[in-house]
């Protein structure tokens, strides 16, 4: 019986080894592919001269900033929509009209308004993050055990107290899940904006490497972006389990 861990690694390792052997054998000269060893070397090199760290910072800063701003807006609205049903029904059409606009479509607007740099990226990431958090926190509030709301009424809690002591703690696990999903979206949107137009960050770095006809560096950045995404997601999953553990019996889509 091959242990599960080994099975999981078998395919990628075998693929990398095969690719390496093939590339060496045909003395690969290509603008788009490079042997895994060259990619690894390029990655190390990018660390050594610090370029990859700067690029990573330039991607993660707007991603987190956008996540925070969009998350705050989405959370506030989501909770309000979840609590006040009248507000929810009145805002339905407006939300359904704005939500489907792909965040990337705002890119040109943000570009002419704010120019290149952090700010336009933050705005686009924020817009993208508002919606999943709004929808999920609204559902989280709506899904609070009605018994708890009855208890809050019986205890005559003030509205502020009710939100602070009952609604937020009860909805917290699902809200955390919403932020976890939004974090993934934030990273994707940030990188996409950089690839499309913004000359900073990991997206721009990978485009520059491609334009400089350096496939090993390009693939190194691709690998690194994947690693960053993976670490971010795993880190948040660990945090989720740590903070909520068995109490967060949340339906996990990931």
């Amino acid at each position, binding site marked *: 019986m091959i242990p599960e861990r080994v099975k999981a690694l078998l395919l990628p390792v075998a693929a990398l080894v095969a690719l390496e052997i093939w590339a060496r054998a045909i003395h690969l000269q290509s603008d788009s592919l490079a042997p895994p060893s060259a990619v690894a070397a390029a990655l190390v090199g990018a660390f050594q001269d610090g370029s990859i760290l700067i690029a990573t910072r330039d991607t993660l800063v707007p991603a987190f900033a956008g996540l925070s701003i969009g998350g705050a807006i989405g959370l506030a609205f989501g909770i309000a929509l979840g609590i006040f049903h009248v507000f929810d029904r009145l805002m*339905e059409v407006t939300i359904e009209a*704005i939500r489907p606009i792909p965040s990337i479509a705002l890119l040109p607007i943000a570009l002419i308004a704010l120019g290149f740099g952090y700010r336009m990226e933050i705005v686009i990431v924020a817009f993208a993050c508002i919606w999943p958090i709004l929808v999920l926190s609204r559902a989280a509030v709506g899904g609070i055990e009605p018994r708890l709301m009855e208890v809050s009424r019986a205890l005559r809690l003030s509205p502020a107290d009710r939100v602070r002591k009952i609604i937020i703690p009860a909805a917290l696990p699902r809200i955390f899940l919403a932020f976890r999903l939004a974090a993934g979206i934030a990273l994707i949107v940030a990188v996409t904006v950089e690839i499309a137009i913004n000359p900073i960050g990991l997206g721009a770095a990978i485009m520059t490497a491609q334009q400089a006809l350096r496939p090993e560096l390009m693939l190194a950045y691709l690998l690194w972006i994947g690693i960053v995404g993976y670490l971010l997601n795993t880190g948040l999953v660990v945090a989720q389990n740590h903070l909520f553990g068995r109490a967060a019996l949340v339906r996990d889509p990931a």
Partner: protein
Amino acid sequence: MNRSVLYWRAASFAVAAGFVGLWQMIANQRLVSPVFLPGPDRAWASLVRGFTDGDLWGKLVGTLGHMAYGWFVASIAGIALGAMIGSSRTMRSYVAPSLEFLRPLPVSAIIPVAIAMLGLTQSMALFVIAFGAIWPMLLATIHGFAAVEPRLYEVSRSLHMSRLAVIFKIALPSASPDILSGMRLSLTVALILSVVCEILAGLDGLGHWVLLSARSFRSADLFAGVILLGVIGYLTALAMSVVEKRLLRWRSGGH
């Protein structure tokens, strides 16, 4: 549809109209420079103009074409591959972990690789869109096939159903809710990647339209394009909802 639902919908439309009115006021008062924020009247005029005199229709068709192609290829490949991988426990244990690792990877990062291989061309765009749209389909289909109720497999063994019959009569219908939600996500991805590729490669489409409008500071045209993209997003989501409701009728019944 009962009365109260209708009234609430109407009220909701009224609120939305109110926001549009607010937008018009802000534009009229020039609280934000009209270079950045055209009023809804100018955006609407641009829309009409674009369809009658200009090439907006062509651009719309261009984006829809890119989306449709990518989404179609992705659906077929995604469902076929997903079915194969999802229905075999051995394949799952070898392949699924790698897929899980690749899941959080921003799929737009494949664009430079595609450009390196295919240049700033239509083929590059179609490759990227198909590649990006496959992932949600693949992952959802694998999940759907892996989650088929094992009791149903026992029933199929008892009835001596053929392999093909098991796939089409049991596994596929069982996985259909997951597959349909994967399709929904795929549509969103296809739209986004279409716009990005059109911006990058200058292909005929709404992405290109909005970029050109932005570069020439024609904000009304820009907003018209953005609105159209929103409309595409809305209509495709609506279409998926309708399809889902029809195919998944059996889910709603019961106590």
